[in-house]
């Protein structure tokens, strides 16, 4: 495992993404609320570009005491990204597939040294 230079941290604005190739791997690097997250860009479903789709807050539902719905809402505390091929939705913080948490994208560690961002792979 070696640290590979990716980019200057100043080139990453909050909400930006970079898709990089490292040998035979493709990695999507996200910057969300000041933190970096990196996952394999190959969707677990059919190998689509998982990290290149929509980023969207998790949709949750308000339930009344009798368990009837009081409406849906965006939960800003959770952030998801969606594979553009068939809509597999992943948790940005863990890489888990939202509908089945047992499925996980390969996660890569990101190291920031000063203004430089490195991926450990």
């Amino acid at each position, binding site marked *: 495992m070696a640290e590979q230079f990716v980019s200057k941290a100043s080139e990453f*604005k*909050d*909400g930006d*993404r*970079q898709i990089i*190739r490292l040998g035979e791997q493709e990695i999507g690097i996200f910057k969300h609320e000041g933190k970096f997250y990196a996952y394999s860009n190959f969707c677990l479903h059919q190998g689509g570009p998982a990290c290149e789709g929509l980023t969207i807050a998790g949709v949750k539902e308000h339930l009344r005491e009798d368990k009837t719905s009081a409406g*849906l809402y*965006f939960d800003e505390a959770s952030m998801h990204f969606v594979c553009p091929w068939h809509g597999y939705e992943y948790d940005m913080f863990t890489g888990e597939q939202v509908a089945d948490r047992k499925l996980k994208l390969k996660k890569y560690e990101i190291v920031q040294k000063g203004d430089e961002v490195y991926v450990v792979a």
Partner: protein
Amino acid sequence: MSSPKAAAKAAPKAARKPAPAISAEPSKSEKAAFLKAMMEGIKPGSLAAQKSAAKKEPGARLLGKVPKTKASPAPKAAAAKPARTSAKKAEGAPKVEILRKISGAAGVARTPESERAFALAKELEAALADGKLDLIQPPAMQALMGALCKVYSANEDSGNRYPILAGRAAVTGTDVMIVCGALLKAVDLQVFELGMWQSWAGR
């Protein structure tokens, strides 16, 4: 006697050179030269060395930065040294290739008014979740709804068109029907009038 046409046809055939025979296997000297080139690696100062340097430093022009290595009369020694230095450089050089950069929507700067609107929306949603339906009193709701209608309509008219909701999941269909019905009733419009206006105006 051959006709002039036949002579003209025969002339280019005679002028043609026989095609060089394609040998199935290179000669011994060619094989030796190939092996020697493989063992030596990239020769300093050659076009291959320039291309290699340009790949490592994309900003460098092809003929600008060539790895400086001392030319030596002994070819084996000269070939061994640059191979080791280039290997060392390759270890430290980034192997990452950036395929795509995707800008986030968060790059759009929010105005203070937008920030206040976001905060108010969040507060209202939270209150609704807690069952507080009267956080905003009716006159305040009327003023807010009226202002939102006017601002959205003015933007639409001026060509600044955007979806009125962030996504399909933002509100339910029932919510939309209740609000649309109430708005139409407030200005004494019937649903068929809305339909007529939409078909005339091409909306």
